[in-house]
């Protein structure tokens, strides 16, 4: 029995969500026991290609059946008309009726979303205007550029005023300018609705999202806020840069409170793993003065989401083997 109160706070909620394709020996588990608890805000859904992201999203919109488990959008069972009224979805490679103009397309989907024609037209024009497509509204979509098509796909997802926007790799086929444009738009949208965006481009997720869900081989491997993840995966590695790194490296080598020290071949900086960080911080200024060395920078190495993602995936791979 699901406690309604506990689900109520979530925009997307899944319990042991599982998808198996095929039967018997040929059965393929694409998604396994995924438990999502997506609260209002903007959330990333990360994973390499083939991890099960699209399959999960397709179960949430009701495009494919759920083999086991449950999924809800707010309080509504995923796949029902009531749940679909709450979501706007943008597929990985949006396809359009090319013989329709941008405006006709939005009006059509708006009407399917429950708007009367006159309201659908008004809403379509508002969206076309906000996406800088108003001038192109009477052109067939087949004449639109890749960026314009992506914008019309987002507008189409928004036409019936959903509460939760689900995007499947929205920047996958765009050039850098198009990507930046779409990311900016998604961030804008997240001010008024919840966004759940899948991607395998981690830097984009890092720019956009507060929380991330990482999946691999159909299973969740990390589910936390980006800041928490970074804290958890923080390493005791410090990077020092001076005006004479080679000479100062020799000085540090003999300090007892330093566990490991080396000069990084890539950037020429000194990488230090201290035994006693406090002592390192206390003595470093004295050492620098004593050896007439100018400090250029000293910081604990930050880890990008990319590094954490790669490490986690590799760890998982080796565990599976």
């Amino acid at each position: 029995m699901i406690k309604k109160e506990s689900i109520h706070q979530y925009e997307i909620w899944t319990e042991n969500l599982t998808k198996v394709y095929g039967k018997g020996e040929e059965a393929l588990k694409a998604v396994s026991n995924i438990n999502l608890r997506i609260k209002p805000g903007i959330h990333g859904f990360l994973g390499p290609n083939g991890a099960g992201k699209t399959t999960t999203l397709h179960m949430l919109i009701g495009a494919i059946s759920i083999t086991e488990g449950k999924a809800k959008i707010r309080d509504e069972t995923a796949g029902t008309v009531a749940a679909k009224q709450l979501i706007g979805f943008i597929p990985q490679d949006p396809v359009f009726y090319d013989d329709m103009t941008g405006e006709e397309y939005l009006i059509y989907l708006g009407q399917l979303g429950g708007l009367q024609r006159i309201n659908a037209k008004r809403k379509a024009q508002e969206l076309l205007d906000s996406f800088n497509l108003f001038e192109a509204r009477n052109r067939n979509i087949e004449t639109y550029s890749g960026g314009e098509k992506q914008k019309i796909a987002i507008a189409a997802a928004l036409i019936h005023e959903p509460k939760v926007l689900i995007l499947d790799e929205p920047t996958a086929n765009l050039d850098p300018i198009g990507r930046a444009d779409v990311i900016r738009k998604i961030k804008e949208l997240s001010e008024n609705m919840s966004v759940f965006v899948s991607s395998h481009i981690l830097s984009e997720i890092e720019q956009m999202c507060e929380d991330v869900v990482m999946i691999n081989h159909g299973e969740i491997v990390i589910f936390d806020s980006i800041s928490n993840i970074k804290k958890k995966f923080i390493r005791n590695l410090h990077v020092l840069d001076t005006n004479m790194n080679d000479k100062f490296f020799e000085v540090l080598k003999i300090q007892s409170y330093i566990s490991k020290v080396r000069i990084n071949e890539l950037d020429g900086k000194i990488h230090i793993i201290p035994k006693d960080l406090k002592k390192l911080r206390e003595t470093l200024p004295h050492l620098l003065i004593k050896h007439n060395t100018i400090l250029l920078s000293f910081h604990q190495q930050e880890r990008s989401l990319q590094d954490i993602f790669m490490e986690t995936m590799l760890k998982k791979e080796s565990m599976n083997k």
Partner: protein
Amino acid sequence: MKKLSVNIIKNIKTKSIAFKEKRFLPVNAWLSENIFKKTDIVIKKTYRDISSLKKGLIVIPIMLVVPLLFLLIPPAIDFGLVSPHHAATVNSFSLVFPVFFWTLGIVFTIIIGTSGAPLIAEEIKTGTMLILISKPITRTRIFLGKYLAVFLLGMVLSFIAIFSLGWITVLINSGNIDHFISLIPFLTALYLYSLFILFLFTSITMALSSILKKSKTVSVVIILIIIVSFVAFQFIRGLVGDFYESFQLYHFDLGYHLGNVFIFFMETFNVAPPSISWQNLFALLTGVYKFTNTIDPDQRIDLGGLEKTNYYLPIFSLLIWIIIAVLLLVFGIYKLKKREISI
């Protein structure tokens, strides 16, 4: 308590506003909201996709060409002298076979098949269906919208084809408006038969489009069904008639059943009196009649047409295929509801 009463008042206000808004909805918006529930939107869009003036200008002449060739065979009467009823009978004798075989047979079924084939299979394949089903509309309504659009197209095409054929026939023969009026029962019977064909083949097409991945495969299967129905069984009946009867192949012979239903409409409207002039062709093509000589050898008078094979009562053929069409419609909806839509 106070909070509760405020809520109740709020609720009543909201409901009364909604009621007022609903009361003043235009009729089409009311129908769309309460009866069709978005199906009409899919119908409009699909109808626009599958119909065009260009398509009509190509398809209608093709539907009419064979019956018009039959009209070129001059009948042994002077249309200027005969009664409108007599003229209508002579015209229906000329048209009854080519309309069954060509206009409402091969051409019409191919048009239905090729128009309906891509509507689900192709939309799933290209990915537009994924966006469609992510919207708050049930798959049943998507299916019905597309189904009814094909049905509507067929209704319009067969109406134009049948009634313009009637006009052209009268114009060629006499140009007398009374002759056209007398032909209306025959044209109506043809139109009702076309609705039956439309129902059956739309159901077959849309069911196939729901289960097959490629629209080309759907079209090929439809064309195979048409060839088997209108051509293949003809040869089986002609070459191995005993085998056909002893193994009761007529149960599965769609051509026979279509012929039987067609004759049912002709008989019900009493528009094509029995005569070997057209029944011979039905005997050959559909097996509805037996090849028996009903011409008086002495006086060379048609004694009232051919004897029926009566494998099925015509009304049973009609009911059986209507039931099959309904089952296919339900099957199509069921398959689309169960289908995994992913690209």
